[in-house]
């Protein structure tokens, strides 16, 4: 199923890597939006509907956890699954992210196979 994704990371290189990993994982991306922090991502979502959000945690301006907390107030983000992709992979971080509303958690470094393992079930559950 073709999807529209939003990738949120303060590293432009990492945003490109995540997009490439999604494509290598066989995810059919019709459109990819990018944002460098949570505030930029909220602005993107006010104007655009997406099917999947991939989000870093440690970012300036607004971090990933605060961004996820604010999603319920965004019409275009309702029922959109969020998967965190971050170097922070401690149990506390995972629990915190999931309790904020994230549906999955991928720790960097990752392989396209790991991305697929996490994303495909999330997208399947959404549809």
């Amino acid at each position: 199923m073709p999807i529209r994704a939003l990738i949120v990371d303060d590293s432009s290189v990492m945003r490109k890597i995540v997009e490439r990993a999604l494509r290598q994982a066989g995810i059919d991306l019709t459109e990819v939006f990018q944002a460098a922090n949570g505030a930029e991502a909220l602005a993107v979502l006010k104007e655009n509907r997406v099917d999947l959000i991939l989000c870093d945690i440690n970012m300036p301006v607004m971090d990933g956890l605060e961004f996820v907390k604010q999603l319920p107030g965004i019409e275009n983000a309702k029922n959109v699954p969020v998967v965190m992709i971050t170097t922070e992979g401690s149990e506390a971080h995972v629990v915190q992210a999931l309790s904020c509303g994230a549906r999955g958690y991928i720790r960097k470094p990752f392989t396209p196979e790991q991305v697929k393992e996490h994303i495909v079930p999330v997208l399947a559950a959404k549809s």
Partner: protein
Amino acid sequence: MKSVSELPAGCSSHEDWIPLIEVAAREVFELMLGCQLAVPATAEQTILDVTSMVGLAGQLSGVFSVRCSGKAAALMTSRMLGVKLDEVGPEVLDAIGEVCNMVAGNFKHKIAVLAEGCMLSPPTVVTGSAYKLHSLTDSPALEVRLLFEGLPLVISLQIHS
């Protein structure tokens, strides 16, 4: 991912962390850049003019750094983005910062006490070689020297506490 993770906190000697730094780096380069790091047979004299640093705070305070040549940094960027070397532009600094960030993050997850109690700062990248880092502590840096595509790479952890 191959891992020696969940290492008990009993691994308390900082010297014991050197192999973990090496494994952390090898895993990042294998998974994100698709290449194997090698151990240099001799000490290389190449100028390492790109330094990426990530600060650690919490259970461990210090600075994690990755040093390499500009050529190596460009090659890393090329590998990470899947583009030709001559297509690499200013994103080199971003890429080398992410490499350091991932190696530091991967390293701390191999030590149970650090995984939960240590935070990483955003990366800082310094270019040029005419500088010297002065630590305000007397603890020596843990250092690992490796080769990335035949180019020297020095990964170090300066511990402050």
